[in-house]
């Protein structure tokens, strides 16, 4: 399954108050690719992801899915936080997508349990999310997306609210599950290390309005782990990305934006 974004722009509001959130974004993913979208806060990365997910309509441009026939859903999204329903137990949260598609209870629980095991939550299956830590709740969200078996996984800064240690563990878990399933992933983040550690390619965005500034191939062998961050190639890439994004971060902090 391939995804192509063609000249996507999004304008919020009308008339005088209209602001251009993202501007003329075009890119394609390849089969099974892990693509990271990196940008300063407020650059419209989440907006872009929601357009790809079909949750928002672009003001212009189009999102095209193409490839082999598929039975399952096109995409499943892992949200920043609060995406897990507090009124459902862990199992029902993970099985939510299957339930919505009418998969019988027994089957959806069996399939969900499989992924709960993968993220180490099988013994918490019947507990409620509020009894678990924030990191565990994001694991629920990840399991929910994978068990839904979509063509493309969309992740909107899923680890943004986690502490550094938990984040490292979840990144490693995500890489492991992904390497077993080889789904196409589009992963939004503002963390350069995370983008390099996870991605096949890193798409760097400008500050508002978000445009594509750079597309970099990571080209570091997999499987990868945290030790990667001390290698010269990692540091070289990090410097390169930082130089590319630095100006954008500064601009987003001073509010010195292009006109819409």
């Amino acid at each position, binding site marked *: 399954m391939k995804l192509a974004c063609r000249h996507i722009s999004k304008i919020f509001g009308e008339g005088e108050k209209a602001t251009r959130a993202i501007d003329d974004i075009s890119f394609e993913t390849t089969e099974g690719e892990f693509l990271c979208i990196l940008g300063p806060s407020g650059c419209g990365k989440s907006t872009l992801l929601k357009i790809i997910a079909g*949750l928002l309509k672009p003001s212009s441009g189009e999102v095209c899915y193409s490839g082999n026939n598929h039975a399952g859903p096109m995409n499943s999204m892992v949200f920043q936080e*609060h995406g897990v*329903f507090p009124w*459902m137990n862990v199992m029902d949260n993970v099985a939510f997508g299957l339930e919505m*598609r009418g998969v019988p209870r027994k089957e959806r629980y069996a399939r969900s349990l499989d992924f709960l095991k993968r993220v180490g939550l099988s013994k918490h299956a019947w507990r*409620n999310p*509020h009894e*678990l*830590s924030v990191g565990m*709740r994001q694991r629920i969200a990840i399991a929910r997306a994978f068990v839904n078996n979509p063509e493309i996984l969309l992740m909107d800064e899923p680890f943004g609210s986690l502490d550094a240690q938990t984040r490292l563990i979840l990144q490693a878990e995500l890489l492991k599950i992904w390497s077993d399933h080889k789904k196409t992933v589009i992963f939004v983040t503002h963390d350069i290390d995370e983008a390099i550690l996870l991605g096949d390619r890193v798409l760097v965005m400008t500050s508002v309005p978000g445009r594509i500034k750079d597309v970099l191939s990571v080209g570091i062998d997999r499987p990868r782990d945290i030790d990667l961050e001390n290698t010269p190639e990692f540091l070289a890439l990090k410097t390169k990305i930082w130089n590319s994004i630095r100006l954008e971060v500064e601009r987003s902090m001073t509010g010195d934006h292009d006109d819409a």
Partner: protein
Amino acid sequence: MMLNADRVYPVLLPLVSLTGVLLLWELCGRLGLINPLFFPVPSLIFLAFFGMLADGEIQTNLSITLFRVFVGFLIGTIPGITIGLLMGVSEKTRLFLDPIVAATYPIPKLAIFPLLMVIFGIGELSKIMAIAFGCFFITLINAMGGVRNINKVYFEVAKNYGASKTQLFTRVVLPASLPMIFTGIRIALGMSLIVVVGVEFVSANHGIGAMIWNAWQTFEIEKLYVGIFICAILGILFTLVLKKIEHRTIPWVGQLAHPGEE
């Protein structure tokens, strides 16, 4: 045996303060420091209470009041929550009904009681309807607010995972608005107590409100205190029972902020 202070104090201290106040009251009365005409000593009130219990006065009045409260509560709350949810979900319904709600909601429920007596007669129905009206608006407004305050992310998750309109309602909208629906129910129960006593003051021979009113007219001060005491107990009981139900139905409320705390 050593008892854990953390567990004993929450039970012990309120008991001490309550009995302390009662003892002080009794003492002041006995010493003639307060006028027994207005503030009869607690022991006399308790005596009156047991007397009223013995001749069934309390049971009769209490059951009549509770009947009015529960029937009125149900008649008001069920359509209140239903219409509130509907107004929360559908913008058209909200735009259509909001002005009517906004105009009628602020009217004090007791102010329309005479009108209700004209319409429904001076029997049970007008009293029940007064309570129902009180419950209706407060549950409606809270149910509507409950839906409208749902975190946008939940809707996005539901849409992204392909929820139909029915699934969206039963699996997301309804459970997500439960906390505010319960807030509405809690206020409605309190409101029911106020309204039932009010309408029983003016137009009833039985019920706790009527009992208090008759005690005032015959100047049986102890009975008056018993009535007030029963109202207080009812209020506390309602709150306790509701808290239990809330704890079972919406266990996540107030706990999301403290993950892992057990």
